[in-house]
């Protein structure tokens, strides 16, 4: 999961936002620098949570407010690209403001509405189980 996705997530039942990311394993996969896309999505991004997450992942400090001009501060734009698109969270925990934890395992966060420290269920319910009768 890229950090871009994390910025849009909240807890499933309470809609609490933001979810604090506690990364356990982070993978950096470099992708072609595409300033157009970062500029395109930046207005949709919550800046403060992004700054906090970038710090938690040890990716450096973003300025206190989002960059405005695409032609200046190229370093900031590149850093944004690195944070939003190149950083993949492989293992970790998402903690909601109320303390509920959602695990990220194998790059896949489990966002089902349950607050227990959840592992993947060992028995996978078959479609027929759900179909009652």
């Amino acid at each position, binding site marked *: 999961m890229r950090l871009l996705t994390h910025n849009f997530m909240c807890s499933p*039942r309470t809609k609490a936002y933001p979810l604090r990311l506690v990364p356990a394993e982070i993978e950096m996969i470099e992708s072609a620098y595409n300033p157009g896309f970062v500029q*395109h999505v930046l207005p949709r991004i919550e800046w403060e949570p992004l700054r906090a997450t970038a710090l938690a992942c040890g990716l450096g400090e973003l300025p206190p407010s989002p960059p405005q001009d695409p032609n200046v501060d190229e370093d900031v734009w590149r850093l944004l690209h690195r944070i939003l698109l190149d950083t993949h969270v492989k293992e970790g925990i998402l903690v909601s403001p109320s303390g509920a934890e959602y695990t990220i395992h194998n790059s896949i966060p489990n966002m089902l509405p349950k607050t227990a420290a959840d592992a993947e269920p060992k028995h996978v319910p078959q479609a027929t189980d759900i*179909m009652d009768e």
Partner: protein
Amino acid sequence: MHGLRQRRRRRRVRRSARASVPARVMRVLLVFRGVFPGLRIDEFRAVVQLVRAELAAEGPTELGTEAPSAGTVAGHKDDPLHLGLTTSVQSLPPSAQFRTPGDSLHGDVFYFCELRSEREARLVAQRAFLLKAVYEVIGHGNSYESACDAAVRTVSSDSARQAASWSDGMQELMKGASFRIDVQAFGRSVKQEQKAGLMARFAPVLLQFPGKVNLKSPQHRLMILEDAFPVAGHQQHSQLALNGEHLSVPEPDIRQVFLARLIGETQGGILSKKFRLPDRQYVGTTSMDAELAFIMANVALVRPGRSLILDPFCGTGSILISAVASGAHCIGADIDPRVLRGYGYNQPEPQSHTSSGILSNFEQYGLERPAGILRGDLVHSYWQSPCGGWLDAIITDPPYGIRESIRTVDVEKTNDLQCKHVQHRRLRASDTLRVLIEFAADSLVDNGRLVFWLACTADFVPEELPQHTAFRMVSYGEQQLTMRMHRRLVVMERLPRARLRAESSGPQDTRVQGAQVPDSGSFSNLSAKILRQPWRCETRLVP
């Protein structure tokens, strides 16, 4: 302040200048492929819109490339793009238009359309999947003779006015560009030996072109397109003729003939071959056909390197793959852990822990990883909704209860701390749609598109389509699955929030009303109706 006002004035002047000069249009012939007839026009319109947006982003140098969003382009209500789309048979004499029903099986693969430039036409042809090619017509008629006459009239440069109306390509041809000519027949097969004869019928036109014939790398390709009514027993006749038995092969019953110059051909064949499902590492029972998934990305107006899309019922990720291959950044989510982790369908055990099932498909094609794959339940949505939306498109194939059940996490039964299993309960099809549309209304940006398949029985009526005050219904093209079951590719567009606010009467009215989905329609109860399993009836399920 002063500078701003001046700029505004300048813009106004430019706009009025543009309005006074009639926009240059190029009349082209579209030849569609024989597949998915119900989706042809929907996809074509979307691709034109996409290409225009791309050209507009390149810069304002190109003639007439203002942003094509539906809100800004004034025009006929049914055709905001000014495409002037008509089937080619409409310009034929009435006798050639219709015969007995069933004749027109392939008849509507030919369409006339008005595009803005040859470049636009070429880009559209490259991007659209259901389009075979785009041509500029030189001559068109309901027989070889009349088509040839028409072509001769086009190329005769007697009047200067005629020459001025030629496209750049035609001017090049008349100035000696090299060319080659081919024959393509629809409705019958034409043998190689016969083709030379058919080409010879256009000799009066071809002699007008001063250029050389170049088979290997011609500057222009001409095509004779023959559209014939199918003739009973034609194939046996031509087979006998091939064996040397000279029977009188029935003369083909020709509907129309074109002599045309090729502008652009589709690239779709290469992509759909590359992404074919049988060659894919990880597929499931509900994987979306690669070609259809590309068509969905097109109607969702996925722009390369720009769009952020979500599939909330992603399953094995087949829609995501096509979207990423089309250049989008995408997020997939599903309630079922099996499909995400890649076991349960065609792999008995979890694969290595380094890559999950979905991701292995992206690796197979050398595609960039998706922005995120999540396990989650859309009913208990885990996406925050910023006020302006955050997704450019939602492309999905929601479960309808036949191959995949419609379900949600049962929060009451799942005891948070004790229960290891997640309990599910079934949902009605209408509930899923309602949830999906409400979610889309919150999370799509202005003019963002929601594209989904609506599986239904044959007695579908447009009145039962989902409605929402924040959405405009764009199209609902049909694909027939079986005799009793169809599905519709529903495309809805998020109306701009500012416009909705302006149109609403008072502050109380600004909150958009919820999704209107009838509880019982041709899409409800499919498992009971199609599989004839009455115990799977939805009526006793509570929302």
